[in-house]
């Protein structure tokens, strides 16, 4: 086979650049400018796939986005695999490797096809729901087989090495589609100086002009296209995007354009000058005005065996001949209900091949094209249609009969015409998809026998999609819309002079969708409506008969429009058939909903660059490099990378944490606390604001003093906590949890801006500005003393919960004597740029005190020993301050009813048996309970059994010499001393005593030294 269907001349392919490619293991040749589909047709490949349910051989039927059959697997390498490529939209490149997705052992000889033809009768729509129910135990096995038969292509086994990205664009006018209407619109709008984007999904701009028979200004239409593109290229504010599909139309004129940047070159994106190119780019366009110039999709006629390879839509035949110089057969029968499709027969004849007949459903076809066919002595059979195709893997003949459209019956004798190609045309459906994405329902127009877009604010349909199909009309429509859109976005322009295109006189089209057969649809050979999903006219008829009357039910019961072409080819036919069965009109039946995507788009392109390290930011403290250098393992907390523990040598985590814990209680340890949220608060009403937002009182906090605060939502549940320092009478430094920082700041702004704007207070995040280093342990004071000469560290001059300003290691610092470990502790805050200097200085002086860096795990153990909660670990949005035993932190007497106050007296919050925070001491002192273990009251386990709480934190403490845990337990404060049980997944049941949550130094002696 060597391009036996290629014409010697013509077309828009580049014959000087032959390209080799492979299909199903066979090496073939095409030309630059081919699509994979045109190259396959040039080589006489008939069967490109097998259908989903019946495994019938399938060939190429269309030339664009509406192709349902030619869905192939692409890729020469594993990483370069591209599943489900539509051959009609894939440019050919050298070395392209493609294979059919279904068919076993291969598409040509498919064994499943046998089952399909025998068993097919047993697979009407909905057959799944009617069977495989008994016995219930067998369903998983059936399902396995059902699944095996599913799917088209396969996913690559390797990670995608390519990159994708997004670009945000704003324009005045976005023109979608670059046929005559779109180009005229773009030219008009572009000349105004407005920012214009014009995109087209095809490799070449021009749309229907690329295969038009009409002359434009006396020259081939493509010459006009070239001249327009040349002018657009000179307009600096116009962006022309070929190979770019508008795939989704969202609210407020936000349109996504998917640009295929390298898919026409290779499976894997090439590098240029060593720079990786993005495989596909999503243009996220916000447009002032959208001009929809997406043209029309031709409808094939629904006749028996209309899926046999060699059966195509008429326009595709023209496209292949005129654009690609490929005649997809030798002997053509055209079945049409309109004039426009006559082009296929004329083009066929022009190519020097035989037109067996034009079968026209209309009694009196009349028009310029009809006359031209007559003039060429092409046989025209009026009032008739092809009712059935002959052939299996290729059309061998067409059964033609006189039909009565209104009565939906065959009205005469059946004549069989020998042919290898049947082109059909039932009319043209405007491509309304994008407009429908916005929620606008399409509107039926009797004059064009099609749905046009519903109204979308800021959108104008032009050309074919607007029912203005003839080139001259489309040009005028587009130009006018371009002028108007420019004007609405503030630009002035004259309408461009339009080229002259002779008007082709056309007769009125007939409304024909399903062609009647001599047998009723249920008994006739299959008449396919949606070939990809094997949806037939009989299937639709059956669905309506079974009560699936809404078109949405028909869709869902039969699968119509579910495929990768989303019903572009078949939906309107299906709706017309449903309408006929239900004895209603097409507009009464309505359409199903078109949704994004217009054509399928890779996940990679939609994800863009936001993958792997860019999936989500990682936040680092100023000391991060030091932690890495010192072997830290990290825990991520709300995007922050926090040292989790610092193993030495071969230490396990447990060993490292035990060592770190001891170091803090016995010597001195240091924690990078920079991730804590920090909010600076200034203003004369700062205290009042704190009074309202925190549960406790702030009126009397002196300058230089710190206080712990709890924050609730107004439902009384704890949302965050932290220490806030009074650093000036009207000036506070608040800290929040690491994960809660942003939410707390927003929360404060919310209350301030919406409820209490009269309070004179301002907040700002200073989380990143300050680095915080917490030194903890008996030696902390001695260590700090070595690095400061201007802070009086004497116990009684710098007390627990005091703040002092001074210099540490030569760097101005605020030092807070606060403690999350219960030890003597100073939290040194310096401007973050200087943090590493101070940190290193501490280590220089700290060595002799055994200064040990510790991470969050040790911090957790140490705070738990003291019974300090962690919001998000001890709390889960259902704990009040009282549940946590933190009545001491609740200002019951504050005059303003602070956020959360009222809720504490709601009936449920008042209950005594609420879950309360307690400590647990396992009876086995070595046993570390599971965090998340559930607590029950009885030792004997029966399932189901009532649970009274769960373990929130659990550790082994080298300081206590035993394991311990924090837990929340129903009525827990009344249960101190009781033994509770913790049933484990492995059947073991642990026992623990309920104790106070404070395990160490309840009186606080250690931190008050």
């Amino acid at each position, binding site marked *: 086979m060597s391009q036996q269907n290629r014409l010697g001349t013509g077309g828009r392919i580049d014959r000087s650049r032959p390209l080799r490619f492979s299909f199903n293991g066979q090496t073939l040749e095409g030309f630059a400018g081919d699509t994979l589909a045109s190259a396959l047709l040039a080589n006489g490949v008939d069967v490109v796939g097998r259908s989903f349910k019946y495994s019938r051989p399938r060939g190429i039927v269309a030339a664009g986005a509406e192709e349902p059959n030619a869905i192939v697997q692409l890729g020469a390498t594993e990483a370069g695999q591209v599943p489900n490529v539509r051959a009609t939209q894939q440019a050919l490149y050298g070395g392209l490797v493609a294979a059919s997705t279904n068919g076993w052992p291969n598409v040509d000889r498919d064994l499943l096809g046998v089952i399909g033809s025998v068993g097919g009768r047993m697979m009407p729509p909905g057959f799944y729901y009617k069977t495989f129910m008994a016995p219930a135990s067998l369903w998983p096995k059936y399902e396995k087989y059902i699944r095996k038969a599913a799917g088209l292509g396969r996913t690559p086994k390797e990670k995608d090495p390519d990159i994708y990205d997004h670009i*945000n664009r704003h324009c005045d006018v976005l023109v979608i589609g670059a046929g005559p209407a779109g180009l005229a619109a773009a030219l008009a709008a572009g000349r105004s100086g407005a920012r214009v984007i014009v995109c087209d999904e095809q490799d070449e701009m021009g749309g229907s002009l690329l295969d038009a028979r009409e002359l434009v200004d006396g020259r081939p239409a493509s010459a006009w296209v070239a001249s327009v593109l040349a002018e657009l290229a000179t307009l600096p504010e116009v962006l022309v995007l070929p190979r770019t599909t508008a795939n989704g139309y*969202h*609210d*407020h*004129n*936000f349109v996504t354009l998917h640009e295929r940047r390298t898919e026409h070159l290779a499976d894997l994106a090439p590098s240029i000058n060593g720079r990786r190119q993005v495989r596909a780019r999503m243009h996220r366009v*916000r447009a002032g005005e959208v001009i929809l110039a997406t043209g029309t999709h031709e409808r094939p006629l629904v006749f028996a065996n209309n899926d046999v390879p060699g059966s195509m839509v008429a326009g595709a035949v023209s496209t292949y001949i005129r654009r690609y110089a490929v005649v997809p057969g030798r002997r053509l029968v055209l079945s049409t209900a309109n004039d426009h499709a006559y082009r296929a027969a004329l083009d066929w004849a022009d190519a020097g091949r035989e037109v067996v007949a034009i079968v026209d459903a209309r009694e009196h076809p009349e028009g310029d094209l009809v006359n031209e066919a007559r003039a060429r002595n092409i046989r025209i059979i009026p009032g008739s249609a092809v009712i059935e195709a002959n052939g299996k893997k290729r059309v061998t003949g067409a059964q033609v009969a006189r039909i009565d459209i209104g009565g939906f019956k065959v009205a005469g004798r059946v004549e069989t015409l020998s042919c290898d190609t049947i082109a059909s045309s039932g009319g043209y459906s405007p491509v309304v998809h994008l407009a429908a994405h916005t*929620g606008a329902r399409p509107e039926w127009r009797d004059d064009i026998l099609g749905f046009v877009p519903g109204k979308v*604010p800021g959108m104008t349909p032009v050309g074919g999609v607007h029912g203005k199909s003839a080139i001259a009309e489309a040009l005028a429509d587009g130009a006018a819309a371009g002028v108007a859109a420019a004007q609405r976005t503030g630009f002035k322009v004259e309408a461009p002079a339009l080229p002259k295109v002779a008007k082709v006189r056309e007769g009125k089209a007939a409304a024909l969708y399903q062609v009647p057969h001599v047998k009723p649809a249920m008994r006739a050979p299959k008449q396919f409506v949606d070939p990809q999903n094997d949806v037939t006219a009989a299937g639709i008829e059956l669905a309506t008969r079974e009560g699936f009357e809404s078109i949405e039910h028909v869709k869902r019961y039969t699968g119509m429009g579910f495929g990768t072409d989303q019903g572009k080819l078949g939906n309107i036919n299906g709706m017309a058939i449903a309408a006929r069965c239900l004895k209603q009109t097409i507009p009464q039946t309505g359409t199903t909903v078109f949704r994004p995507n217009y054509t399928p788009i890779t996940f990679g392109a939609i994800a863009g660059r936001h993958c792997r390290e860019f999936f989500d930011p990682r936040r680092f403290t100023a000391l991060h490099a030091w932690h890495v250098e010192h072997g830290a393992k990290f825990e991520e907390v709300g995007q922050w990378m926090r040292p989790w523990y610092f193993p030495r040598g071969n230490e396990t985590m447990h060993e490292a944490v035990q060592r770190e814990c001891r170091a803090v209680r016995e010597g001195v340890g240091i924690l990078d606390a920079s991730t804590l949220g920090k909010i600076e608060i200034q203003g004369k009403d700062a205290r009042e604001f704190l009074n309202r937002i925190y549960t406790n009182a702030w009126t009397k906090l002196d300058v230089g003093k710190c206080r712990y605060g709890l924050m609730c939502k*107004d*439902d009384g549940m704890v949302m965050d906590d932290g220490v806030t320092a009074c650093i000036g009478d009207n000036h506070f430094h608040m800290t929040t949890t690491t994960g809660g920082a942003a939410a707390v700041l*927003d929360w404060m*702004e*919310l209350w301030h*801006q*919406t*409820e209490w*704007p009269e309070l004179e207070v301002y907040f700002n995040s200073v989380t990143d500005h300050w680095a915080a280093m917490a030194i903890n342990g008996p030696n902390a004071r001695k260590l700090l003393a070595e690095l400061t000469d201007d802070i009086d560290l004497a116990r009684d001059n710098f007390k627990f919960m005091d703040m002092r300003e001074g210099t540490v290691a030569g760097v101005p610092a605020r030092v807070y004597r606060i403690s999350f470990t219960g030890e003597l502790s100073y939290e040194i805050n310096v401007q973050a740029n200087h943090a590493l200097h101070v940190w290193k200085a501490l280590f220089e002086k700290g060595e002799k005190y055994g200064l040990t860096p510790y991470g969050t795990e040790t911090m957790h153990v140490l705070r738990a020993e003291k019974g300090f909660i962690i919001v998000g670990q001890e709390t889960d949005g259902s704990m009040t301050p009282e549940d946590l035993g933190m009545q001491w932190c609740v200002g019951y007497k504050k005059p303003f*009813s602070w956020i959360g*106050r*009222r*809720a504490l*007296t*709601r*009936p449920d919050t008042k209950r005594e048996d609420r879950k309360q925070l307690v400590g647990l001491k396992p009876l086995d002192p070595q046993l570390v309970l599971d965090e998340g273990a559930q607590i029950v009251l009885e030792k004997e386990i029966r399932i189901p059994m009532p649970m009274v709480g769960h373990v929130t934190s659990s550790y082994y403490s080298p300081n206590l010499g035993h394991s311990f845990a924090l837990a929340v337990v129903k009525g827990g404060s009344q249960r101190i001393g009781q033994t509770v049980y913790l049933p484990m997944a492995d059947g073991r049941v642990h026992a623990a005593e309920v104790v106070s949550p404070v395990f160490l130094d309840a009186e606080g002696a250690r931190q008050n030294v």
Partner: protein
Amino acid sequence: MLHIYCPHCAETREEEEFRPKGEAHIARPVEPEATSDEDWGNYLFFRKNPRGLHHELWYHAAGCRKFFNVTRDTVSYQIHETYKVGQKPSVTADKGAAK
């Protein structure tokens, strides 16, 4: 993808810059302690949730960090107006969406 006019920045900006914060004009009872459990529950949780015109609170999180109100149709998603906190809407369900 909404395109929202921020009355503080005086520009129409992309949805990604904003965060929706639910129904607008929900005032916290002035005397919570004197408020019945029922009224408190209503204030916390019960919402108009209209199908149609909705006055809602938005936050210009990545821009000026100001809260403001939006009158938006929850079916068409059309935004009829935006206005500052403390102001009253000029487009309401009773008055009809003038624009």
